[in-house]
Each structure stands twice: as C-alpha cells, then as structure tokens.
C-alpha cells in the first residue's frame, strides 16, 4: 500500500507539479534526466539483478537514438544537411527505410534488442562473465564510436545528428509541444519502471537473481543461465534504445560523444549512486546524478568536475550499496553493534 502511495506521489510530482512549476528550460532538462532514468531501470535489471556489469549501455542508447534521429532528419524530404557537406549527393540505401515512421519506431527497439541478444547468446554461452564481460561491453562502446565517426557521410561523424524541428507532428520550437514530449517521456519511464518491477517479482526475476548469486548451481538444476541472462540484457538494451529515441527530440541532437565510454560510464554511475539493487534507487540515482551535474556546472563552471568526482568517491566509500542501500547499511551497523554489546 505504502509503495503504491509513494509511486503515486512521484507520478504527481513528475506529471503535474513539474510542468506547472518549472520553466520550459528546466523542464527540458528534467526530460533529459528522465531519459537517463529509463536507461537506469534497464541497468538496474541487468547489473543489480543479473550481475552483468554493462559498461557499454551507450551503444544501445545510441542505436535507438540514431534510428529516431535518422527518421527525424528525413521528415522534410530533403537530403540531411551533413550529407551535403560530407560530399554525399544521394540518400544512402541504409537511410531509405527510416523515412517510414513505423519502421523507424520499430528499429528503435529492434536494433538494440537484436544486438544485445546476439552478443548475449555469444558471450554468455561461452560463460564469459564478471570483469571480462564488463571489458567486452566497454570495447563495444569504443568500437561503435569509431565506426560512427569514421562514416561521416552516413552518420554525421563527430557532429552527429543535429537540428530537428518536428517530432511526429510536434513542433519542437514550441514550448507547449515540448511539454507534451516531456509528459510522454515521464509516462514511458513510469511504464518501464512498472514492467521491469513486474519482471523482477516474477519467477523469472527470482531465477535471474539466483543465477547472479550462483550460476553453476542454477545450471545444475537444469536451467540455461545464458538464455535467462540474455533476456535481461536484451530488455535493458531495449529500454536504453527507447531512452535514446526520446533523448533525440528532447535534447535536439545525438553525437558519438553521447554513447561512448564516458557516456556509458555516466549512465552506470547514476545507478551506482542511487543503489543498483533497488529499481527506485536506480531511477532516483540517475535523476540526482544528472541534476547534480547541471547544478554543479552552473555554480562552479571551472571546478565542477572535481566536486562531482569527490561526491562519487564519497558515495562509493561510505555507501557502497548506493543511497538506497544506506538504510540497510544503517540497520546492519546497528545490529552488529548490538551484537558486540551482547557479547561484551
């Protein structure tokens, strides 16, 4: 009951209070944080529940984002601006199907899920896990960025895709339309949160945690851990793809810098700060981390990175389970002290 009340309060805050109270600029920023929170829901599933430390979530964010960006770039029927200055005169074949909105929307989810499934089946069947998996996913992010930058005529290179005015009938130059986009993002976050929570509470969710804590034991019980892990990984990739697709119209651009190693790490850091074992913690962590980034950089444009880094170190040292784990930690500390007292 109480959980439901808290969820309702959060929903009212995001859907009603924020659009009324915040200026269009701050609301845009909140919308961006919500995109990162959607990714955080996925990371919490893959990392917190499944034990897969994914350092390459930016790749899936980017796949979804580029699928959406390519569609938005084709809406006016002209050759995308960056192609003409890269010397591409005709629309490349790869781009053509993205003019169709249904195809583009499908690709937002299909592309990341497909890549994650292939990678997952390949890697988890080989029983690659832990740090090896983390390094592999990070290498994927690095390779993806090099690919995007190298194919400037096809992807816009380091500039990425910029300058969108319309998003499925919404005029992104109008504040009222941007508010609708924000609300859509908030609703998508709510839906992602609820569905992943359902997934976590199901038998599947229990199996996932069991695999995290003792993969070999689960295998001996007759389950296929590779399949179970791949599903969680693919779901988290799909969520990242959706977040990327919403990020593009909200922020107005997508470039390789948004999905490289650093960007992928930042996605993870938010989750780590909030607490990866708790879905709500991951969401709050992503929101807090990105909000702090904005505020610190506005307050101390010269030294904000140090402040942010120091805070992250502080959380990792004193609250390794994240902010959501603080009360557990507190309870543990209390009970151990009590034990000590009893022994004495």
């Amino acid at each position, binding site marked *: 009951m109480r959980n439901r009340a808290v969820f309702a309060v959060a929903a009212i805050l995001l859907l009603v209070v924020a659009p009324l109270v*915040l200026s269009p*600029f701050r609301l845009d920023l909140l919308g961006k944080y919500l995109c990162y929170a959607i990714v955080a829901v996925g990371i919490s599933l893959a990392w917190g529940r499944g034990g897969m430390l994914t350092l390459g979530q930016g790749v899936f964010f980017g796949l979804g984002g580029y699928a959406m960006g390519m569609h938005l770039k084709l809406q006016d029927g002209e050759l995308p601006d960056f192609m003409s200055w890269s010397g591409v005169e005709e629309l490349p074949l790869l781009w053509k199907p993205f003019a169709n909105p249904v195809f583009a929307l499908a690709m937002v989810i299909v592309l990341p899920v497909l890549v994650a499934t292939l990678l997952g089946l390949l890697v988890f069947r080989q029983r690659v896990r832990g740090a090896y998996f983390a390094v592999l996913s990070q290498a994927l992010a690095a390779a993806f960025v090099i690919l995007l930058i190298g194919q400037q005529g096809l992807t816009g290179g*380091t*500039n990425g895709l910029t300058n969108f005015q319309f998003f499925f009938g919404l005029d992104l130059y109008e504040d009222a339309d941007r508010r609708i986009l924000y609300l859509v993002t908030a609703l998508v976050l709510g839906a992602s949160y609820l569905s992943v929570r359902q997934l976590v509470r199901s038998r599947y969710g229990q199996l996932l945690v069991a695999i995290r804590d003792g993969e070999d034991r689960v295998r001996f019980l007759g389950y296929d851990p590779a399949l179970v892990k791949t599903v969680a990984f693919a779901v988290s990739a799909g969520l990242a793809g959706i977040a990327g697709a919403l990020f593009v119209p909200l922020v*107005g*651009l997508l470039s390789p810098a948004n999905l490289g190693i650093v960007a992928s790490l930042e996605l993870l850091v938010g989750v780590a700060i*909030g607490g990866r074992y*708790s879905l709500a913690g991951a969401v709050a962590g992503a929101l807090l981390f990105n909000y702090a980034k904005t505020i610190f950089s506005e307050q101390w444009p*010269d030294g904000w990175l140090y402040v942010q880094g120091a805070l992250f170190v502080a959380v990792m040292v004193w609250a390794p389970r994240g902010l959501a784990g603080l009360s557990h930690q507190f309870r543990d500390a209390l009970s151990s002290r009590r034990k000590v007292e009893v022994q004495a």
Partner: protein
Amino acid sequence: MSPVRRTLITLLAAGLLAGGCANDPSGSGGSGGDTIKVGILHSLSGTMAISEVTVRDSELLAIEEVNAAGGVLGKKLEPVVEDGASDWPTFAEKAQKLINEDKVATTFGGWTSASRKAMLPVFERNKALLWYPVQYEGLESSPYIFYTGATTNQQIVPALDYLKQQGKKSVFLVGSDYVFPRTANKIIKAYAAANGMTISGEEYTPLGTTEYSTIVNKLGQAKPDVVFNTLNGDSNVAFFKQLRSAGFTAQTMPTVSVSVAEEEVTGIGPANVAGHLVAWNYYQTTEGTTNSTFVKAYKAKYGADKVTSDPMEAGYNAVKLWAAAAAKAGSVDVDAVKKAAGGISLDLPEGKVTIDGENQHVYKTARIGLIQPDGQIKEVWNSGAPIKPDPYLKGYAWAAGLS
C-alpha cells in the same frame, strides 16, 4: 523497503524544489537593470579546454575594456561564464540556459564545428545571437550567428595560392577525422584539380590520436612537396615530434598547418615545429599599435609568459564588434543589433575588420607565417587587403560543385 523509498522520494522532491527555486528570475537580465548580461560559453574542462580557456580569457579582457570605456549604452557588461565541457549536448544545454534563464543579450562561444552545429538550432529557435570566434569549414551562414574567425576563402584558399606560387606541385593531406578537415580537404582537392596540383595521399585519424608512425612512413614513401595539416588539438604534438624523430625537417618535409597557433606551438615545443608554415589571419607578432596594446593588456592581466593567438584575437574582436553594433543600434535587441552590424568597421589587433551584413562573417586579411625557434610566428606573406568573406565559395569557378 518502504523507508528507503520514502527517503528517495524526499530527495527527489527536494531536487525538484531546488530546480524550481533555481529558475527564479535572478536579478536583471538582458538590458534591464544597471548591467547588460552577456554569455561566455567555452569548454573549461575536457579535451578542448586547453584551447578554449584562452579564448574565454581574451573575451573577458575585451569585456573589461568595454566596461572601462563606459560600457554599452551607459551600462556595464556582466559576463555569465558557462562550461561547454567539450561535450556537444552540453553546449546546447548551456546555450539554452544562458538565453532562457540568464536572459543574456548575446553569447560569445564555441570552438569546434560540432559545438557550433549543436548550438545553432538553439540560437535559431530562440532568435538569440551567437558570436563564433574560430576559423571553420564554411558552407554555413546562420542568421543568428556572427562568424569572426576565417571562413575557407580567407585561410585555406590563400594558403593554397601561396603554395602554388612557391611551386609546390604535390600535396599530402593529413587531418583529424571530423567535419572541418574533411570539408577543408574537399576544397583542397577541388583547388588542386583546377590548378594542376596532385594529391599524393589523404589520411585521417580520430581526434586525440597520438600514434603517427604509420602516417610518417607513408609521407616518406609519397615524398610530397608539402603536407597540408588539418590535425586538431593534442594530435599535433605527437605528429610533429614523430615527424622530427623520423629524421624529417621543415626543409625535407615542409608542412602547412591551419590549426596550429602560438598556443599550440608552445605545447608541441618550438624546436619540433620551427621552420614549418601556418595559415591564419593574426599572429602575436602582427604589426600595429592596436595589437601591441592588446598583447600588453593580455600579458598584464594573465601573465607575462602568455601568448596571444588567432582564435583569442577573434574572440576579443567579437566582443568589440558586438559592443559597436549595439552602440550603433542604440539597443541590445537582437534584430536591431543584426541590422546595425553590417558595415561596422573597427581597427582591431589584426588590422581593419569589417562586418559583412549579408552573411554575417567579417573581412579578414590572410597571413602565412613561419614558425620561429622562439615559438613566435613570423609573417612571410599576406593578402594585402582584407578579403571579403565567401562561406559558400561562390566567387570561385573551381568550387562550383562543392556546396
């Protein structure tokens, strides 16, 4: 579980509230009150910080000078500095913040083409002004951007004219992998085709690359008359050091660079680049009292060991030109400033600078320089008079197929 949630939600609510407070109108914005706010948006962190911090410094110096001379329309300028963090979406975000929250009258900022492309829609959407101070690849003319750095016909084309005049027949292209080098090389190839020069090679490396032995080997095999270098940032340090350690000198493998200025020469080490050519519109050594005053003022404010460079000077110019346009318009209103800006002509460190009202670029004198062993750059050729900006190279027959 639930107490945890409660804490989190409280945190979240607190965050939202703080966000709400943060957007309270903070004092006087735009032209209201006793000051006029102007935005300064450069990378103060990340890979571009080394270059962009110097531009911020020269812009702050210009603002200080404008204020000392009585400000604009009788009001002092108040700079609002934001960090673009070498990250393109951050540039877009901070530009929006400067426009909507701080209500700045104009913004000076950007360095990389990517940061400009990221900010462009923000300024166009909000009908706000951006002054962009770095030489760039042309093919752009936004009604809400003033370009005080060189476009291609004021830097790259004159450099090619100079090379042709020196009898260089074969050119090897080395560049970082992004829009500026690729577009520049497209222009160079078109020029070469029309002027009987050959391209003996074309190589790109990702930004930040520091391994150039392969490319240096290829240079050795191709033996071009000259290397046209469009590498940007740290890569220049590695490139020139490795070129030198492979036994090449400025005589055996001459290069002409378009992104190496005094600041970068200090980083590369003058000994490694002395004798190589660069193409800009301004050097610290450029003659004239306006420049010696500028150099002296800059050193007095930031330290005697500091150097001045072309992008710094272009940023300094941007502030002065905007102040002159606002004074002429009698207002800091964007449309009024835009209308008044055309034809404004000031005596600035690089010489006479005039704003072209049509494409919002400026007339600039092209200068080829030779890097000296002491790290300074000596001018060896100039275009004689300021060149009219032509971002789409419409006045050049050989460039017909480019834009």
